[in-house]
């Protein structure tokens, strides 16, 4: 085993720029010009503990790469120095597919995959560090869907990465548990960062700008992992996410109105605090149930109502009178009911106002405190309850008083 690794390194060593320099343990190095087949072979033959190291330069792949061995690290010479390019890819639905635990990728870039860039399925201890994923042609619906894409994983760290151009989500964590997403820069994606059907996530100190929507916390029906809960979204810079929605139609992310800061869809126990969210033409912070999508729910275990959301101590500023898309149209209709003479500016925060009949207390006609949407300490930021469906006897309301409550702070997600 060791003999092979050393032999490969030896070959690379002739190039004079050893990609394995400084790596402890077994390392297989590749310098620019290495064949795609040799890279895939190394990934197949790697042993736990092996590092696959790429030197500076661009490496072209026509077929996807895959890894099934635990505890392997893939590294480059820096996210702006080493690029794995999939521009010529004709085979495989992602650039790199990992079905293993203990996986780390760092200091490298993955560019122009026709499908997802880096997908990790079903692993524990998954780390993305200083990794760049980019579709270099800018926003385009022919770009791949997801940039950094751990799904059904446990213990996920995504840190100091850059993701640009995903036609769905730049950073997408799905059906996972124990997640930290911090210090990343997401730009020109449809969704900058999305946490979907996941539990225990900390999303903080990220920058999300020029996406269609900045940060999304969604729960969707029909999946094996239901009813995600326990996400903290804090200390993020979320601004100017006004890139026209370029998701291929038919995707749920296509629902996100162009110009969305932070959005919660049918998620539970979400604490949104200390964020700077500004300059969105549809909404700075939105909370909705699955009900207004109009899609029939056939999944009996799906809970389509957001509960226990706490929006506090954020700085929210800058919306518009031209919200977009179908949900934007709902906003316009609701504001039209409130202000028939016009004019209006969309409030900073919006809630569809749809209550779960099973959770409504008979005495109050409202949720118990533990289930409520709480809003406090957001300066002079304003709010609208759409009281969906529109056009009925219950008018939309801008009264925040029913939301003057506080949920217990959610616990920090600990690194492992």
């Amino acid at each position, binding site marked *: 085993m060791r003999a092979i690794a050393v032999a490969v390194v030896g070959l690379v060593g002739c190039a004079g720029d050893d990609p394995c320099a400084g790596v402890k343990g077994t390392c297989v190095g590749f310098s620019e010009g290495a064949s795609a087949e040799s890279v895939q072979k190394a990934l*197949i033959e790697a042993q736990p503990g092996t590092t696959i190291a790429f030197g500076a330069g661009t490496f072209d792949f026509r077929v996807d790469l895959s890894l099934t061995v635990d505890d392997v690290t893939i590294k480059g010479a820096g996210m702006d120095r080493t690029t794995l390019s999939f521009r010529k890819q004709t085979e495989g639905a992602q650039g790199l597919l990992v079905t293993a635990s203990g996986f780390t990728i760092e200091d490298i870039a993955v560019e122009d995959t026709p499908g997802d860039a880096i997908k990790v*399925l079903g692993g524990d201890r998954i780390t993305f560090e200083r990794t760049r994923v980019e579709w270099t042609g800018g926003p385009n619906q022919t770009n791949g869907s997801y940039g950094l894409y751990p799904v059904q994983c446990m213990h996920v760290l995504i840190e100091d990465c850059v993701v640009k151009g995903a036609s769905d989500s730049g950073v997408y964590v799905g059906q996972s548990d124990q997640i930290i997403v911090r210090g990343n820069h997401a730009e020109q994606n449809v969704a900058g960062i999305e946490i979907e059907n996941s539990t225990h996530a900390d999303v903080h100190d990220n920058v999300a700008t020029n996406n269609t929507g900045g940060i999304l916390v969604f729960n969707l029906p029909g999946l094996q992992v239901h009813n995600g809960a326990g996400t903290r979204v804090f200390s993020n810079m979320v601004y100017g996410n006004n890139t026209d929605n370029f998701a291929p139609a038919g995707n749920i992310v296509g629902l996100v109105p162009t110009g969305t800061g932070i959005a919660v869809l049918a998620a539970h126990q979400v604490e949104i605090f200390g964020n700077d969210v500004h300059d969105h033409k549809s909404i700075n912070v939105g909370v909705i149930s699955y009900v207004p999508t109009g899609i029939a729910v*056939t999944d009996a275990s799906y809970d389509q109502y957001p509960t226990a959301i706490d929006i506090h101590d954020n700085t929210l500023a800058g919306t518009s009178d031209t919200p977009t898309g179908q949900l934007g149209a709902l906003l316009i209709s609701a504001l039209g009911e409130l202000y028939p003479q016009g004019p209006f500016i969309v409030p900073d925060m919006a809630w569809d106002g749809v209550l779960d009949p099973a959770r409504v207390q008979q005495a109050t006609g409202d949720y118990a405190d533990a289930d409520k949407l709480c809003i406090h300490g957001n300066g002079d930021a304003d709010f609208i309850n759409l009281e969906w469906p529109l056009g009925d006897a219950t008018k939309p309301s801008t009264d925040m008083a029913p939301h003057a409550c506080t949920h217990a702070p959610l616990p920090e997600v600990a690194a492992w």
Partner: protein
Amino acid sequence: MVRRVLLLAALAACGDNDTPEVCGAQNGVMCQRLSSWQLFDDIAAQTPAAGVMPYDINTPLFSDYATKQRFLVLPPGGVATWSDADAFELPAGSVLVKTFSYLHDRRDPSLGSTLLETRVLVKGDKGWHGAAYVYDDGGTDAHLQVAGTIRSESWIHDDGSTRTDDYVVPNANQCKNCHAEHDNVTSLLGPKARHMNKNGQLEAMVAAGQLAGAPDPMTWPKAPDAFDPASGTLEQRARAWLDINCGHCHNPRGAARTSGLFLDVAQTDPAVFGVCKPPVATGRGSGGLQFDIVPGSPDDSILVYRISSTDPEVRMPELGRNLVHAEGVALIREWITSMTGGCTGWTSGHGQPASQPARL
């Protein structure tokens, strides 16, 4: 286990082609050359050696119009164990062999074929591992190709036209993509009762004492031949095609489990096999459509869109095909057309039918 074996094989690569290899199911080492497995009396003619049992299945997985020949080798005295729904349990030392080839002219098999690859799956002490052997130009032997390869091939198609394909021989990880359920446990696709219940194959195995635990033959499941209307209803044939082509990933333990779309034949809830099911992470694979299957409307069904595509991000299955299985697409279209009802989408109530989703 898998890794160790492959690595030993890689070391063995230092030997030249004439040196006898120490390899095979008995000592757990992948051979470098197909001939070293001693599976065939005549490799070019695919004449199996003694103890190598050819078999066929009712509806095969589509592989770019390649023809497939399947063989099963049980270890001396080895017995397979029956399962009603899952793959038969095969004893350690079992070998499954599948050879892929292109007929020169699909209208006349007697004109011969080009051998592409033979895949070998070996049951070791800790499970299955596999590899592909790519044929030399003459087709007299094939060599282990851990990292896979692409072969440019052509043939005369059923309609007399010349067809070409960049046929992909999978790498060892891609093998696992289809042959793995949870935790990378390799699973078998073909050797299941419903697939092998054909031409008296199972009866012969039982009679030879090679298949234990089989119940009354009257109760044996039998998948239809998807393209023989006499063998099942339209729905049964469509589900059989989906089962063998999609069900190995799209099942509750498979690689596509995160989609929530399960196409194995065990699923009985229409919402789970796609009827009015909105996609989750389909991306460009949606084709602008809202639901996997819209009853009565194949053109509005993402399922049809994806099996009709050759785009790497859109096409399904993801692996194992570059070409469209025209006959399979026609079957699925016919099945969806025959369904009644419709789906309620997010445009409902806004004056637009669900089949024309509005861009939000």
